């Protein structure tokens, strides 16, 4: 005699697993933001109450006007002309400080442009990284001429 038993399937129900997994994916996709997480490093020198005195003629002063125009050692200059101007000076003295001094009303992006350009000194044939200094207004008032 043949018994016709109703055997249950020996299977693990996995059909809903994908649903749960995709639900989690949707959550992570919504909460993930691929934002700009890159930038220029800007190492701050220690806030020294008695900083070394830099003579005016020992350094190169880059002033940035509110219009974005650059005045390098009293002469107007374009951004790409700065490195060729600095090259002979830095070959004589690689540690020569280059001071960026934006006007208080200068848009921030002009300062970043100049800083970015100076940071690429080695790519433009300089032997050493440029000794860049960006004094704050407080430092200028406290320690400058």
């Amino acid at each position: 005699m043949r018994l016709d038993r109703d055997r249950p399937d020996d299977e693990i129900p996995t059909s809903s697993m994908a649903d749960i997994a995709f639900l989690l994916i949707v959550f992570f996709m919504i909460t993930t933001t691929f934002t700009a997480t890159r930038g220029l490093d800007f190492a701050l020198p220690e806030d020294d109450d008695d900083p070394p005195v830099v003579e005016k003629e020992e350094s190169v002063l880059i002033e940035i006007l509110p219009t974005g125009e650059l005045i390098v050692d009293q002469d107007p200059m374009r951004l790409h002309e700065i490195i060729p101007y600095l090259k002979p000076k830095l070959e004589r003295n690689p540690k020569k400080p280059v001071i960026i001094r934006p006007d208080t009303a200068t848009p921030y992006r002009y300062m970043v442009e100049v800083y970015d350009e100076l940071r690429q000194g080695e790519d433009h044939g300089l032997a050493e990284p440029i000794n860049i200094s960006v004094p704050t207004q407080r430092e200028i008032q406290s320690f400058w001429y």
Partner: protein
Amino acid sequence: MKLKATIEHKPNIPTASMADIAFLLIIFFMLTITFEVDKTQVQLPKTTLRYEIPKQSAYVSIDPNGRIRVSDGNEQSALVSAADEVLSMAAGVIAMDPQKVFVVKSDGDVQWEKVDEVIDALKRAKVRDVYLLSDQRTVTDG
């Protein structure tokens, strides 16, 4: 003539591997996720050089109207009224972790005076590593 009974196939979509793929994607998102601590909308300045900023860095953001927001890297950023508050917040963060990296996220059109105040506050708080958040400059940017 006896016709052979046609064998009926049960329609079935193989879904067993779907969960594998889904979990693979989940693992990818779990590893790459970074919860944004500052959602200030700014037009970042563009630079050629850009370095990866360490995760969980503290943020100081300046929006186009000059409003400053600060975050220690764990909490959502909060509005502060003056740069002096940046100093007290940064000093607190540095006291807990002297190696903490700070990110200045400022709109490119903000006047230097405003950014200068923030950088000065970070300097006074003895912050050593600061990153200026930027977008990539391309050849078309001139």
